[in-house]
């Protein structure tokens, strides 16, 4: 049996990063260790263009699932580490070939250490020759069913038959912090994923309107946050009580402008929260035209109240594309649980699709929202969520 004892991690978008290479690698190395922190006997080694992890007795399947979610990894492989010696290399490759039920193969050698006495092509030939002679496998250099990769380094050589695609992108957190407006819907958790993929550390702000929204609705949002927090380890969720502002807005402006004004208030609250937590931008799950508050006119009118940049990763996605992504990251089923619109009182019948800044400002001049914003911020809760673990006693 081939025993894959070492995980070899290849880096993502590194070529473009030039002088930031070191930061990239250090951050990725830290993130990988954090994501695998439950596997206590892992042994890590950081090299110029790879991270190596000796897995000892840990469960390779569980490690594989975790690593698939680490941004900044272009691909990784479970490898067998052997001495950099042609006989040892050839033995392991032959064993991989002998154990497979595939029909065609190819050997791909890469010499990281040019002092090895054979050139890559010569190694390919020598190893392939042995496999051809002793098995029924045929060589197919264009589309092999089995690709055996040999990475030759000065001391050790890593051999693998599987290259697992990583999540790509940048290591979480390397590009700074963003504050995402998180609802219980389908879009915003996907936006969180997209932001994290670009190396941003995501914190979330959620607006709750108890008793018009229930504890279950709030719980659902925290569950969604905990699901996407897998990609960066944990996540802060700032829960802001929005009831008083919401009631006041309805009282002042009535139905058509309510959603516009609510969104403007949320942006104001979010901008100030972002300042407090050191986030340099806001994020939203908005997508052009999806609902009344996401027409270009609405977006412009709502955006008007903040100076902080607003990143909208889903802005040009179709709903079906967003749903596909939500399914991929596993948030879809939770997002569609029927808690969000638990209350029909605040379900406007005729929301305005082309709101104007002037009119919004007129309504807002009718009440002292500054004071209410201050109060809401003062009562804001900071909840830290992590990926849920099913380790409760009764399970």
């Amino acid at each position, binding site marked *: 049996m081939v025993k894959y004892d070492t995980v070899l991690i290849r880096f993502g978008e590194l070529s473009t990063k030039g002088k930031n290479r070191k930061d990239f690698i250090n951050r990725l190395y830290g993130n990988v260790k954090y994501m695998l922190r439950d596997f206590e006997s892992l042994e890590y080694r950081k090299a110029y263009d790879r991270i190596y992890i000796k897995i000892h007795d840990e469960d390779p399947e569980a490690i594989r699932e975790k690593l698939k979610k680490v941004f900044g990894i272009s691909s990784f492989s479970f490898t067998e580490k052997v001495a950099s010696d042609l006989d040892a290399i050839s033995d392991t490759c032959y064993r991989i070939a002998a154990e497979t039920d595939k029909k065609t193969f190819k050997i791909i050698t890469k010499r990281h250490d040019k002092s090895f006495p054979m050139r890559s092509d010569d190694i390919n030939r020598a190893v392939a020759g042995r496999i051809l002679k002793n098995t029924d496998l045929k060589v197919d250099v264009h589309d092999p069913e089995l690709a055996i990769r040999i990475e030759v380094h000065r001391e050790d050589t890593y051999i693998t038959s599987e290259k697992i695609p990583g999540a790509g992108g940048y290591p979480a957190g390397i590009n700074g912090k963003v504050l995402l407006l998180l609802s219980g819907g389908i879009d915003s958790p996907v936006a969180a994923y997209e932001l994290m993929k670009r190396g941003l550390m995501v914190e979330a702000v959620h607006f709750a309107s108890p*008793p*018009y929204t229930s504890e279950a609705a709030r719980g659902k949002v925290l569950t969604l946050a905990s699901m996407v927090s897998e990609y960066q380890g944990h996540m802060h969720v700032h829960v802001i009580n929005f009831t008083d502002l919401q009631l006041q807005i309805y009282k002042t402006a009535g139905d058509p402008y309510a959603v516009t004004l609510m969104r403007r208030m949320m942006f104001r609250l979010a901008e100030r929260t972002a300042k407090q937590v050191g986030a340099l931008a806001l994020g939203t799950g908005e997508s052009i035209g999806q609902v009344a508050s996401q027409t270009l006119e609405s977006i412009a009118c709502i955006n008007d109240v903040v100076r902080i940049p607003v990143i909208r990763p889903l802005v040009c996605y179709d709903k079906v594309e967003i749903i596909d992504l939500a399914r991929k990251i596993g948030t879809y089923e939770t997002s569609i649980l*029927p808690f969000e619109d*638990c*209350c029909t*009182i605040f379900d406007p019948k005729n929301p305005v699709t082309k709101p104007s800044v002037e009119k919004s400002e007129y309504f807002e001049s009718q009440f002292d929202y500054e004071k209410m914003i201050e109060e809401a911020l003062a009562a804001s809760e900071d909840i830290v969520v992590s990926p849920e673990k099913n380790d409760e006693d009764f399970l």
Partner: protein
Amino acid sequence: MQRRIYFDNASTTNINPEVLKSYKQLLDQYYVNSESLYDEGTQISRMMEKARSAIAGLLDVESDEIIFTSGSSESNTSAIKGVCFACPEKKHIVTTNIEHSSVLNACKQMEEVFGYEVTYLPVGPDATVTLQQAAHALRPDTALVTIMHVNNEVGSINPIEEIAEYVKKHSHAYMHADLTQSMGKLEINMKNIDLASVSAHKLEGLKGSGILIKKKHVPFVPLINGGEQEQGLRGGTSNAPVNMVFAKTLRLAMENGRKSHDKIEKLSRMLEEGLRAIEGVEINHPARHIPSTVNFSYEKIPSEVMQNALNRKGFMVSARSTCDSKSDDPSYVLTAMGYSVKRASSCIRVSLSSANTEEEVQLFLKALKEIIEQYG
């Protein structure tokens, strides 16, 4: 930690410590199959039969008229389908329009899938049906009359014994009574009742436990097929420890029911008076109701919002039947009583137990006033 106050005893109850103690002991010790022929199996079987006979004694029926089930939803469904399928020449069922969803949905299925005709007797403003209504609905091809003793949302009390007597005297239909909400609270004479459903978890017992009383003369087709358990009427390995503690559950519930009746009645009166004193609050339960169930509406605040607000203040209450709590529809019980959609969409059910106190009732009234002031 916020003080939490439980006012949802019609939904389910806490477990009586005595019941829990016995259950734990039984669970530890008696794991073998009660159908097994070795000593341990026959011992468990004997104990379960002892429990069965104790239950029968408490209800004044015969031992072999008790079938252990998973609870009232199963007992109700089995009673309806079990009797109807056993009398294939009859195609008519009589029930009311405010039964529990397990009865209404079973009846609906009998109509839609099996071609039965069902008469849904409309209740009056007091949420009950009369003997005359039931008598009038009977037909020569009526297989079953199924009526709840006490309604789960408003606590109204049907004249179940009268109706049963009439059905037995003047027709060949069988009489089923859903006793889920009345057991331990009202006395009932089983003389003319052919089938009845009781659930343990409403009686400070275990969830997933109940009985169907089925008199010997009643033809019955089992819904769950299996071995010879429960006289072949309900298959599946007996949940022996659970069934055994049903006896203690029922005995204690009946004893406590008698003891605590006056206390609950006093709490109920206090609550109702307090509710009537709040402007805009309307009482939905009828004048004649079991005191443990109190139902009211404040129309400006829909049920769900009111429940959320009460929850935040530490009170656990229901709106509609908890089995329908995920639905947004107005309460069908209240609409059947003739109340407006608005009133039926803003109802709150408070259900008391002997563990509740006067202080809790006062705290509730205070919290309710605050909520109405803030959001009303």
